[in-house]
C-alpha cells in the first residue's frame, strides 16, 4: 500500500508534514534531514526539487532553491541521495517541484525513479489539472505515485469537488491568497475558509499549508483539517542551525507542543 494512503488510514488528526529543499543548507543534508524528521515525529516529508524560477514560493523558499542549485543539486543528485531512503526511513515522502526540471529529466524516467527510491507522491504547483488528466495521470498511476492538487480560498466549490474526484491521497489547502511564507496567526477570514472546506464533506483528507509557522497556526489549521504542512518556518530553522539533529527535534516538538 502507498505510504500516504496508509498514513491517512492510520491517522486522521494532527498530521504534521514538513517541507524542505533538497541540497539545503548543504548538498549532503537531504537524507540527514529526512531521518531526523522521522525520528522527531514528523508524519510526512516533502522534499523540494530546487528550480531557478519558483513562482509559487515566497522569499524564504526561493532563497533556499538558489542556494541548493549553487550547491550543485540536480534531480540526478537527488535520486542518488534518495537511493538509501528506504533502508532507514519509512515515513511517506513527497517530492515537490516545478514542471520543467521533471520534463527535462524525462517524465517516465522520473516517475520510474521515484518509485524505485520509494517516493510516494508528487506536488507540482504549476501542473494544471487539465494537463495532469491528459498526460501525467496514466504514468503517475503506473508507478504508484499520488498526485496532490492545491486549492486556495478563490477555488470554486465546483472545482474543489472535481479535484476531490481526481485525488487519492490528500488535498493541499493553501491557507490564503499568497505564496509560501510563515505567518504568526490566522485571521477570521482564513478560519472561515478552513471551516467552509471542512463542511464540504470531501472524500479526501486535507492538509493546510502556506503560513503555518508555530503551534498556534498548527492548532488553528488542524482544528479544521486532518493536518498541516510547514515549509518556510522549517527552512529558517535549517538556515540558522548549528546542530541539525537538536534543532529539528526541537522544531517538531514546538509545533506539536508536546
Amino acid at each position, binding site marked *: 500500500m502507498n505510504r500516504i494512503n496508509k498514513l491517512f488510514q492510520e491517522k486522521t488528526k494532527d498530521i504534521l508534514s514538513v517541507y524542505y529543499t533538497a541540497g539545503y543548507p548543504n548538498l549532503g543534508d537531504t537524507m540527514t534531514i529526512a531521518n531526523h524528521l522521522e525520528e522527531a515525529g514528523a508524519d510526512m516529508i516533502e522534499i523540494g526539487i530546487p*528550480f*531557478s*524560477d*519558483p*513562482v*509559487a514560493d*515566497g*522569499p524564504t523558499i*526561493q532563497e533556499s532553491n*538558489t542556494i541548493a*542549485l549553487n550547491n550543485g543539486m*540536480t*534531480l*540526478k543528485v537527488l535520486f542518488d541521495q534518495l537511493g538509501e531512503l528506504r533502508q532507514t526511513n519509512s515515513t511517506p515522502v513527497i517530492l515537490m517541484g*516545478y*514542471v*520543467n*526540471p*521533471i*520534463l*527535462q*529529466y524525462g517524465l517516465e524516467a522520473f516517475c520510474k525513479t521515484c518509485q524505485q527510491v520509494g517516493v510516494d507522491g508528487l506536488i507540482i*504547483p*504549476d*501542473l*494544471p*489539472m*487539465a*494537463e495532469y488528466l491528459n498526460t501525467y495521470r496514466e504514468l503517475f498511476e503506473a508507478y504508484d505515485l499520488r498526485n496532490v*492538487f*492545491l*486549492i*486556495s480560498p*478563490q*477555488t*470554486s466549490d465546483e*472545482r474543489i469537488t472535481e479535484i476531490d474526484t481526481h485525488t487519492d491521497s490528500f488535498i493541499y489547502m*493553501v491557507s490564503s*491568497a*499568497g*505564496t509560501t511564507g510563515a505567518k504568526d496567526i490566522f485571521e477570521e477570514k482564513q478560519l472561515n475558509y478552513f471551516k467552509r472546506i471542512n463542511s464540504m464533506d470531501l472524500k479526501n483528507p486535507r492538509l493546510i499549508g502556506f503560513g503555518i509557522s508555530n503551534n498556534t497556526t498548527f492548532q488553528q489549521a488542524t482544528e479544521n483539517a486532518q493536518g498541516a504542512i510547514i515549509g518556510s518556518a522549517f527552512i529558517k530553522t535549517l538556515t540558522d542551525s548549528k546542530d541539525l539533529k537538536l534543532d529539528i527535534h526541537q522544531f517538531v516538538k514546538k509545533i506539536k507542543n508536546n
Partner: protein
Amino acid sequence: MKYAVDENGYYGNFGGSYIPEMLYPNVEELRVRYLDIINESSFQKEFEYLLKQYVGRPTPLYFAPRLSEKYKSKIYLKREDLCHTGAHKVNNTIGQILLAKELGKQKIIAETGAGQHGVATATVCALMGMECIVYMGEVDIERQRPNVERMKLLGAKVVPATSGSKTLKDATNEAMRHWISHPEDTHYIIGSVVGPHPYPDMVTQFQSVISEEIMKQLEEQEDTQNPDYVIACVGGGSNAAGAFYHYLNNEEVKLVAVEASGKGNATGQSAATTVLGKPGVLHGSKTLLMQTDDGQVVEPYSISAGLDYPGIGPIHAHLFETGRVHFESATDQEAMEAGVELSRLEGIIPAIETAHALAALAKLNLKKSDVVVINLSGRGDKDLDTYIKWGEY
C-alpha cells in the same frame, strides 16, 4: 486559421496554461471572457478610438528610398516607433486596460525589462486613473534609469525584483507572485505574447492591428496587400506576432523573425532561443526555452534589454517548428551597425531591439523586385546611452 491557438490554448506542441492553482480563477475568467469582450462593438469602438486619437494610429508605412537603394530592393518601414510612448507596446496595454475595466479590476501590475512595456502600462493606467505597479529587475533598473523615472512621473510604483538574476524573467516571477497574492482586484498586463493561455493569443490580437494596417497601406502604394517579406525582431515576440498575424495563412509572404545572438551563438552569450533553446515550461506556457540539461532556466544575453528573455512566445515556437517563419539572428555588432545605418540613411534612430530586424536585410539575398516590410517596432531615444557607449558612429 492554421496557425491559430486551439481550444486548449496550444499552438501545435506549444502553449497551454501551466499556472499554480491559486491563479486558476483569474486566468480561467480571462480565458472564458476575453474573446467575447474584445469582439463587443463597444469595446472595439473604444479601442479603435484610443488607438487613433491617443496612440496616433494608423502609423505610417514609409517607403525608405536610400535604404532600398543600399539593399537593392523596395523597403518599407512600418513606423511603430511613432506610436505614443515610442513603441508598439502601447497597442497591447490599451487593449488590456480596457479589458481589465470590463472585468471590474481596479489595480494593474506589469513586468518590464527595458522599461518600454512598463512605460506603456504606466501610461494607460494614468489615462484610466488606475493604480499601477511595475516589477522590474534590479539590474534593469540600473541600466534603464530614464524609463524608471518616466514610469514614476506617470504615477506608477516601480518595484525592484531582487530574486534570481534580477532581470526580466525575475520581474515576471515577481509580478506573478504579486498576482497570486492579490487575485481579486488586480489584472496582470503581460507585455509580450508569453504567459499562460489566453495571454499569447490576446496580446497577438491586440498587436494584429500592425499587419492589418500594413495590408491596407501597401495596397495604396504597391497595388498589392502582400509584400515578399515581413521582417520583425523577436524577444518574447509581440511586435513580430502583430506584424505577421494577417499574413500567417498567406504562404507567399515570407516571414522573417530576427533573434538577438548577442556576442555570437557559439559564445553562449546570446538570446537566440530557437538556436540555443529546447522545449520547456516557464511563466505559464510550454515553449522553446534556454535552459541547462537539468531544466534550470539560463540567463540570456543581448545588448538589447528588450530581447533579453530566455524564451519566446509559444506561437513563435510553433511557427519556427512548422517552418512558417524563417528565423535569423543578429549579433550586438550587426544590430548596432544596422541602427547607425538607418540613422544615416533615413534620419530615423531605431530602438536597438528594432535594429536587429534591420540587420537581417544583409542576410536575405534580396532581389530588386522584392517588396520588404520591416516592422520598426520602437524608437532609439531610450537607447542613446547604449549607442554612446558603443561609440562607433
